[in-house]
């Protein structure tokens, strides 16, 4: 079943240009889906329309078969939304924020309290339940918004930049948490500026640019389209001259750091054999740029050229 089906979605703001120019988008149930795009591309407008926070100009939105125009409450009941900005009352206690959200979704007080406890414990906030939300750290506030979005057990969780501004440790723990709830059956749509995050978490991806879908593909297929990988190699000792290895381009960045350009489709064993024959010992290796980042920049650039 499709978790989300969008057809010809358009949005024109009262005093602005076309924010969305006829978007079609499908997300399958159980997917972990990335919606990426540069600032102002239309990601937040799309999410805002799905979550009933923005009025659409035209087009249709269906969530688990429920039409947003005909059955808005059925659509809302399926969705949990984690916005980009902190949007809770900072003076309300943490526990009350989550319990009240449960109440808005029709959960009786006792049930809302029970579910709030489960969510807050999962996100390690139960100990903070009586504190005002404003006293939480940035990472805790992000987790509070996730707990609030999950209290009614949504089938579709929409996360708009959920890890913006949180440290790497919290980000990794949030990734584990999101993988877990996705594995339990919750469909997740994620927008993020950390493309590494999308690459690690998501199975499918759409890139939106200037109000249009520029690309829509499976993550591994999209990454396969990369023509070249740029690798950074840390070597054990400085070398006088760089060896010529067929199919690979080597460049010295520092005395013990080399850059290797590897064409798509070539395996890395040839590179290592060539380096070993030249007496170069590689200590460690990493991608120069996140692979998705590289693709993203290429695609957005190409899309701009096509639509210009």
């Amino acid at each position, binding site marked *: 079943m499709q978790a989300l089906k969008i057809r010809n979605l358009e949005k024109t703001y009262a005093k602005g240009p076309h924010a969305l120019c006829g978007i079609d988008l499908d997300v399958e149930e159980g997917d972990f889906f990335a919606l990426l795009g540069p600032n102002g591309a239309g990601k937040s407008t799309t999410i805002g329309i799905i979550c*009933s*926070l923005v009025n659409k100009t035209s087009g249709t939105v269906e969530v688990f078969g429920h039409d947003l125009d005909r059955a808005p*409450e059925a659509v*809302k009941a399926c969705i949990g939304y984690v916005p980009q900005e*902190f*949007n809770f*009352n900072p003076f309300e206690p943490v526990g009350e924020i989550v319990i*009240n959200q449960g*109440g*808005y979704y029709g959960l009786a007080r006792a049930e809302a309290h029970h579910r709030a406890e489960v969510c807050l414990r999962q996100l390690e906030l139960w100990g903070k339940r009586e504190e005002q939300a404003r006293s939480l750290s940035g990472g805790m506030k992000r987790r509070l918004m996730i707990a609030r979005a999950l209290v009614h057990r949504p089938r579709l969780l929409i996360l708009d930049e959920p890890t913006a501004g949180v440290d790497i440790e919290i980000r990794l723990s949030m990734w584990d948490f999101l993988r877990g709830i996705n594995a339990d059956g919750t469909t997740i749509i994620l927008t993020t500026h950390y493309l590494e995050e999308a690459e690690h978490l998501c199975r499918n991806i759409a890139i939106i640019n200037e109000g249009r879908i520029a690309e829509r593909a499976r993550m591994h297929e999209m990454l396969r389209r990369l023509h070249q990988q740029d690798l950074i190699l840390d070597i054990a000792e400085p070398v006088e001259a760089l060896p010529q290895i067929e199919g690979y381009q080597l460049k010295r960045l520092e005395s013990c750091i080399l850059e290797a350009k590897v064409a798509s489709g070539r395996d890395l064993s040839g590179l290592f054999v060539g380096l070993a024959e030249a007496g170069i010992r590689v200590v460690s290796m990493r991608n120069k740029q996140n692979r998705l980042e590289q693709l993203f920049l290429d695609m957005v650039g190409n899309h701009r050229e096509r639509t210009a």
Partner: protein
Amino acid sequence: MKYWVAFQTLVIKEILRFSRIWVQTVLPPAITTALYFVIFGTLIGSQLGEMDGFRYIDFIVPGLILMAVISNSYANVVSSFYQAKFQGNVEEMLVAPIPPWVILLGYVTGGVARGVAIGILVTLVSMFFSDLTVHSYGITLGVFVLTSVLFSLAGFINAVYANSFDDISIIPTFVLTPLTYLGGVFYSIKLLPEFWQQVSLANPVLYMVNAFRYGLLGVSDIEVGLAIPIILGFIAVLFLFALLLLKRGVGIKS
């Protein structure tokens, strides 16, 4: 059933909100009204003699109670809903499966809860200064609650259109306070020249204050039978207008 739960949640949240900040919401009206009673009722009032057959302090008690109800019902909804807009937590309701009429009723009930709570408190304070009598319990309670509903709705509409904290104080300062003060709280319009009596009849607050005074004292400057339909008419118009604004997402959706 789920709408009832959402409504209950909203009302509990609203009551907890103003209860938590009781020093800002509950205490000031009690102190202000006590000062009115001391200055206008006891000190100046003792020099004024009777009005409509009652001691001046007894005459102004109904108006002062209703003034507190009006300003607190209005203030509760306008500040709460505007803050929800300003902080973004209005989105908590917009993303949830709650129809607009439930959101509106929740906020209005929160406003009525504060209006009624303050009204009762001011009534208790007034008992230290005057001999409170009740001519008609039905009219007294009816006008008390309906006035609170009406000004809660007005506060909601103000909050929908407000874009800054200035916008939520302009209407209370420049519209609500003059209408209340000129609505017969401190005087009978019979004291005014004929022309100003006619002008006063265009002030809706006059009908509420006088109907409430009739409920307590049994005297009124206007036909009480006219007051209740006027209040109900205003409530109907404001409710429908507020509902339309909420459905269209005016001020809260782009």
